[in-house]
């Protein structure tokens, strides 16, 4: 049994309030159905937590992070008291719009690694129904905590060193791309004082280069058209937080197009890394779209304006492109 300790805390949102009371907490016994549920969360976290995050340094660049410090103190001696500090921090970084939460700290060992899963269940209402041979009892329940698929949050940390490790973790945040939600940033940014491990430019650059490589690869023209259309649409993703796989799904890319993009990455796992899309960075890599015709013509324009400056018409198996403008420059280029 890798789970060694479980602590639970009822966390009231207290952001901006001057309330010094400690969140109520308890030791969860390591037996019974509660343990089964916690053990399942602990084990599944390796797959469920898929957002790579890293603790932030201090604003002046020092290698220190308040949330990591609390985590390390807790892991060095897991107890209700050391866990309180983490629960208190969660309360202080959540406001009233996030409602009540039930926080679990699940600690274990995996070989040489120390592992902790921090999991927040949101509160909900429920109806309890008890069926007897001739009657049905219906009861309204408040303060029911459910692993709600829309607002459940968790984070997994696993490392061999309690001194130098635990800078990186993996999180779940189902509200990450709902900018209208007031809670969209509190889990990773405010509570965990962390950022995506991949920077916006790094993730976008990877994606843009993979698209470029895919378009230059030996795939059919229809697949290339699909990829260039995705490139054009991608320039509108600025600020959205997603992975390359999620972008491919958003644009309904065909299997061959997805495969071509994957081939353009240094390794497939990079397609799962979450990043915030940086439209300016994207444009620096995928600036121009070119179409070559079998009559020797090459048409080039800024990728997001190509379809506006070239009017395209299909005539049987041939394509006619029409454009009109004032000549401002002419260039001769080498073959490469």
């Amino acid at each position, binding site marked *: 049994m890798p789970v060694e300790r479980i602590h639970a805390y009822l966390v009231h949102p207290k952001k901006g309030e001057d309330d010094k009371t400690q969140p109520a907490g308890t030791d969860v016994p390591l037996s019974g159905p509660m343990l089964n549920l916690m053990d399942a969360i602990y084990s599944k976290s390796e797959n469920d937590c898929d957002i790579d995050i*890293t603790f932030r340094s201090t604003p002046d*660049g020092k*290698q220190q992070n308040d949330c990591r410090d609390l985590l390390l103190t807790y892991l060095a001696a897991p107890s209700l008291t050391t866990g309180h500090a983490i629960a208190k921090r969660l309360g202080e970084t959540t406001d009233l719009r996030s409602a009540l939460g039930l926080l679990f700290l699940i600690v274990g060992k995996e070989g040489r690694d120390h592992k902790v899963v921090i999991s927040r269940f949101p509160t909900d209402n429920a109806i309890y129904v008890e069926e007897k041979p001739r009657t049905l009892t219906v009861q309204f329940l408040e303060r029911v905590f459910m692993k709600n698929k829309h607002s459940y949050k968790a984070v997994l940390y696993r490392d061999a060193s309690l001194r130098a*490790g635990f800078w990186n973790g993996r999180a779940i945040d189902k509200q990450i791309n709902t900018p209208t939600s007031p809670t969209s940033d509190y889990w990773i940014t405010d509570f965990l004082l962390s950022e995506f491990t991949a920077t916006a430019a*790094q993730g976008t650059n*990877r994606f843009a280069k993979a698209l470029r490589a895919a378009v230059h690869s030996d795939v059919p023209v229809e697949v290339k058209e699909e990829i260039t259309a995705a490139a054009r649409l991608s320039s509108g993703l600025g600020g959205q937080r997603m992975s390359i796989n999620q972008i491919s799904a958003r644009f309904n890319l065909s299997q061959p197009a997805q495969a071509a993009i994957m081939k353009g990455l240094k*390794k497939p796992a990079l397609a799962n890394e979450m990043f915030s899309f940086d439209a300016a960075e994207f444009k620096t890599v995928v600036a121009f779209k070119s179409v070559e015709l079998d009559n020797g013509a090459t048409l080039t324009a800024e990728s997001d304006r190509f379809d506006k400056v070239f009017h395209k018409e299909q005539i049987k198996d041939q394509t006619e492109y029409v454009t009109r403008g004032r000549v401002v420059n002419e260039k001769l280029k080498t073959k490469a």
Partner: protein
Amino acid sequence: MKSSRLKPETLEASYRKRHETVLKPLASALANHITDCFKGQSRIDRISARPKDVSSFLTKANKMGGRHRKYSEPLHQIQDQVGARIVTFYRSDVDCLDKIVGKYFRAIESKDHVPDSEWEFGYFGRHHILVIPSDVIDDDWDKALVPKFFELQIKTLFQHAWSEAEHDVGYKEGEKPLNLDQKRRLAFTSAQAWGADRVFDELFRELLAPASKSN
């Protein structure tokens, strides 16, 4: 917290294995990756990355911090097992390159190394401790051998020249300490490098920077 320090022979064997199987190819992949990130930047003299050699690692691992060893878990705590360096022409370039570091790498530490007092001359340079990007980690490597971070230094040509020569002739642990005159002469070369950097940067900003801005 209980110390989990390995025995010296175990530490050496562990690091040697890490050095041969992971750090060497990792440094090479990092050098290419960094070069790619900085492509198109003017006035970069060179970009390099290298693994810390076994003896330097062991020397650092055995450093004392007061009465105890500074590192109780050297394999985890020493963060410059791979060190990368970007050497650029002028001090103004360091700030520009710093912004690019922030764009493409996740830092857990960024600082300017300067002597403690304004009356001293010695080591100068911008250092970052950065998360090793997953792009350069081979999935076939044993994850336990892959460090989480690497050190990136950004230096001017004069800072680079001074630190290389100082590394060669300066004090090394276990050797005879430098005498006062030797220390003063080393400080003198640092002051000269600092002055040359300053004058070149002033000339660059007066003569070249306005032109590159207007282009």
